[in-house]
């Protein structure tokens, strides 16, 4: 069915179709729209969910853990400082191997306080043990929400999943998207049969013991394996999704990459604009393509290096800054992926859009020109560049 919805409404609609047993909510801009819409579904009896309105994001994540460990499907959603506030518990959710799904509406982290989009919130917990899947638009946010549970609950994975959508740009923009019938979504997701639920008097279980040097390492080793396995499962679920709903999803999307010598790498909503710019630049005769990372954690290192093997100059666009003195998080991961696999490639970082700063087609055009120049001259002036900041 074609429906006009905001990104937040699209995610809430997926949550309605998922119909989780427990949803724990706490408001924060720009995520609030998801939980408000979901509260309407609860109020009108359209879901069976126990809807908990919590005292903080920290408590929301705690209650979600309590429910998931109990043996039911449990969700929450957040943004920015809310995600930062729940961070301690975010890490515990992954460590307890609980298949929680959490939409994160990307917003800049304080300070100074800012409500608009960048990816610093999600990037702040990029190695917390959660799978992170980015969306380009409302359609993808919806589709990713539908796929997330099957990934999280796969026995080889058993890890929580964050699906992200850019604050305001996707969350508040009205778009037309295809939604699927409730029955089909329900069938696609299937039933969740928890292995060791807390609520099962005949088989009591202890969650969260004190784990010393004799076993902690083994538990972390298992967790690392779950993340490695996730790559295969994300692709399997993507193929199953395509079969059912006719939309294809993998670890990343390649756009006009077949003969490309230059390429852009982006995350999230910027991909839409960037694709249009790639088309325009192609008309000028540049052999340029684009890669949109969908699955940021686990990071598709090998696959990415393979897709980039013919590329001479690569522009990595980061909508967040890593304060490590060497550029943004995506830039560093991409460089690490290429190390030892492609020695010839020049990789340049373009940090943009912090705190909701607009990124225009012209900005991206300039990036394309920049990497073309690098290709012609063989010289990189600066490996980390700031796009759209007043110099």
């Amino acid at each position, binding site marked *: 069915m074609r429906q006009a919805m905001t990104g937040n409404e699209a995610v809430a609609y997926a949550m309605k179709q998922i119909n989780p*047993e427990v949803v724990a909510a706490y408001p924060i801009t720009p995520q609030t729209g998801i939980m408000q819409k979901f509260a309407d579904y609860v109020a009108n009896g359209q879901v*069976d969910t126990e809807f908990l309105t*919590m005292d903080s994001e920290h*408590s929301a994540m705690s209650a979600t*853990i309590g429910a998931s460990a109990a043996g039911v499907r449990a969700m929450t959603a957040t943004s920015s400082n809310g995600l930062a506030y729940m961070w*301690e518990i975010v890490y515990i959710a992954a460590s307890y191997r609980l298949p929680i799904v959490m939409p994160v509406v990307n917003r800049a982290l304080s300070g100074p306080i800012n409500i608009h989009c960048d990816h610093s919130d999600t990037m702040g917990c990029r190695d917390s043990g959660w799978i992170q899947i980015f969306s380009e638009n409302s359609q993808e946010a919806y589709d990713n929400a539908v796929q997330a549970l099957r990934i999280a609950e796969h026995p080889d994975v058993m890890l929580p999943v964050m699906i992200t959508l850019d604050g305001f740009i996707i969350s508040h923009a009205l778009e037309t998207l295809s939604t699927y019938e409730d029955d089909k979504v329900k069938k696609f997701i299937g039933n969740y049969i928890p292995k060791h639920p807390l609520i099962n008097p005949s088989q009591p279980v*202890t*969650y969260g013991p004190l*784990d*010393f040097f004799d076993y902690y390492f083994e538990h972390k080793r298992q967790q690392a394996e779950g993340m490695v396995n996730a790559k295969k499962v994300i692709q399997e679920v993507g193929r199953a999704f395509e079969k059912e709903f006719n939309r294809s999803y993998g670890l990343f999307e390649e756009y006009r990459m077949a003969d490309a010598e230059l390429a852009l790498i982006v995350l999230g909503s910027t991909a839409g604009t960037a694709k249009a710019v790639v088309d325009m630049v192609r008309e000028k005769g540049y052999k340029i393509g684009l890669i949109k990372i969908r699955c940021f954690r686990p990071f598709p290192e090998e696959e990415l290096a393979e897709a980039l093997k013919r590329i001479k100059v690569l522009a990595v666009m980061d909508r967040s800054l890593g304060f490590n003195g060497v550029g943004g998080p995506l830039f560093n991961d991409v460089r690490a992926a290429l190390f030892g696999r492609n020695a010839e490639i020049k990789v340049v970082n373009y940090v943009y859009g912090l705190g909701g700063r607009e990124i225009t087609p012209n900005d991206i055009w300039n990036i394309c020109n920049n990497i073309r120049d690098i290709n012609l001259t063989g010289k990189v002036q600066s490996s980390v560049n700031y796009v759209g900041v007043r110099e």
Partner: protein
Amino acid sequence: MASLKELSAREEIVAPGHRLCPGCGAAIVSRMVTKAAKNPLVVACATGCLEVSTTIYPYTSWKSSFLHVAFENSAASLSGTEAAYRALKKKGKIKEDIRFISFGGDGGTYDIGFQSLSGALERGHRMLVICYDNGAYMNTGIQRSSATPRGADTTTSPAGKEAYGKKEYPKDLTACVVAHDIPYAAQASPSHWNDLMKKVEKALEVDGPSFINVLSPCPLGWRYPGEESIELARLAVETGFWQLYEVENGVYKMNYNPKERKPIREWLEKQGRFRHLFTPANEHILQELQEYVDKKWDRLLKLCSITEEANKTK
């Protein structure tokens, strides 16, 4: 209330082999609380002595299901579990009537867990929150908490040449909880096991949140020989430092009200953490502590009569 003989026939929910100190109050309290329950339990626990000592991987002392998430969120985490239970009940997927108990020390309940406790009480989850109050952060090495009595020598409120230990009076957590207008709140002591276990029974029958603040003597932090744990709990009650009372639907009732209370000195002098108070320089603190206890006692008596009266005129 069942007799000790009847209770002894019930299963132990907290198995031995835990690593709590010899004579630990929390061990006694958790045993009494779980033994008073007639239904299957799901227990949550804040980080603290009880949690770390009863679940050292690969061992657990818990024969019920047990959930520990972190220090500050036991009540919030158990809120999710209780909500999941309601969802499962609604769908007919669980037949048993399960009860939910959250344990935390004073650090995890008075201080860092205060917000998550308040939220859980306000939302009305059917769960019993037990605070085992040993009056300091014992698990991290006896740092002062908002439950630490005035005058106590702790590692972050040490007595010294210029200091007599902690300056502040303890937070009245039970009063804070009562202010949430929950159906049942109480204070109890392991010395009065019958009273404590009756309160747990009552609390678990309430269709909503309930709370019991239980004094939990700590040989290490209070500095006394472990064999005296029950004696010290009893003295805390008999001196009026720890009042036994319950608040049912807003009506206060005193559960221990002797004609004569013992002087607070008798409780203080048995504990190393107060030893420095028994010097001429600090004598005035002893006097102030006695006045504090008297004032709290009178206040409780008044609350009992006022709320009882108000209840009659309803």
